[in-house]
């Protein structure tokens, strides 16, 4: 199929932990989406990625129609260079998110809801065990204060360093959770790494500083943590839940990094009532 879009050479299957299948053939990448992804919801997300308003922000697809192969939704993309963790473009990622969040919604409407909050709830639900760690994570998630209502903006929904590729410039990829939501959720995963003591303060400052300097609308520049706090707690619970599920699947204990997330949950649950 990649060959139909000009891909050449041997197919290269990218490893994935989920049921998503990504195959690269030369310059063309074909993605078979999760069976969970609703093709009806993917269509407007794919159209948005191809819209002129997102040019230079998100990678544009080679085909703006969602295809179907053996009952699975499939999309086709140009290949790009992925992030080298030693030279990760944190600032560029933050600037791209700031620009994404600033895209006027009417240009891409109608769009479904962004997938971040549902993804967090799903991760917490997926934990099978009922030990003290699972209970702590469930308590963290269940105890989140109600979010203050905010105007919905265009939001990526699942941002991390794997969601950047470089062609002539860095671009956002992955439309699966793109939609209307609270854009703070796009910043909450790095924020959760930082709050857990995993991401170093200078790196976090570079990311946050670049977002604010680009006029990113998700945060109050005078008090960025006012809006970050609650979604970052949610992402902390989500990351901890994913770690528990991964460790159970691999038949191993949590490692030191994963433990940092459990400790962060412990600190969240220990907060005095009434905060933030």
């Amino acid at each position: 199929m990649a060959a139909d879009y000009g891909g050449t050479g041997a197919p290269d299957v990218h490893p994935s932990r989920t049921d998503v299948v990504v195959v690269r053939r030369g310059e063309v990448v074909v993605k078979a989406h999760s069976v969970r992804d609703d093709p009806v919801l993917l269509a407007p997300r794919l159209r948005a990625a191809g819209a002129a308003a997102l040019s230079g922000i998100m990678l544009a697809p080679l085909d703006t129609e969602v295809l179907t192969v053996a009952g699975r939704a499939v999309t086709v993309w140009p290949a790009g260079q992925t992030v080298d963790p030693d030279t990760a473009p944190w600032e560029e990622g933050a600037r791209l998110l700031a620009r994404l969040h600033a895209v006027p919604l009417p240009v891409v409407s109608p769009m479904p809801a962004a997938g971040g909050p549902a993804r967090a709830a799903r991760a917490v639900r997926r934990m099978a065990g009922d030990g003290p760690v699972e209970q702590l994570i469930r308590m963290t998630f269940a105890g989140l204060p109600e979010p203050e209502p905010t105007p919905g903006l265009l939001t990526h929904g699942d941002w991390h360093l794997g969601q950047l590729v470089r062609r002539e410039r860095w671009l956002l990829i992955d439309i699966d959770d793109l939609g209307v939501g609270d854009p703070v959720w796009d910043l909450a995963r790095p924020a959760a790494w930082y709050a857990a003591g995993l991401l170093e303060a200078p790196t976090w400052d570079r990311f946050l500083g670049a977002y604010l300097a680009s006029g990113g609308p998700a945060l109050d520049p005078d008090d960025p943590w006012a809006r970050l706090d609650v979604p970052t707690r949610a992402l902390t619970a989500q990351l901890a839940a994913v770690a528990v599920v991964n460790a159970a699947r691999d038949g191993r204990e949590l490692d030191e990094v994963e433990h940092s997330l459990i400790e962060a949950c412990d600190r969240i649950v220990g907060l005095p009532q009434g905060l933030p």
Partner: protein
Amino acid sequence: MQCPKCRGNMRTYERNGVHIEQCDNCRGIFLDYGELETITRMESQYRSAPPPAPGGPAWGAPSHGGHHGGGYHHGHKRKDSFLGMLFSS
């Protein structure tokens, strides 16, 4: 100047514009007229000053602020585990 309490030697210090005499012997402190008011005024200014830009949530990792223990640089296993997390949903 001699300490009015123990007759020890008083040493003079200047701190933020406040003139303080302290006894080398009993460590007692002598304030000149008006200096207590100066200190009280400075204290209330300190308390009403806006807090510095918060660098993280109230529940953030305790190592924030000083030298950071976490991150890329501590051990291969730790580094690999966190790198995997940086790139996965």
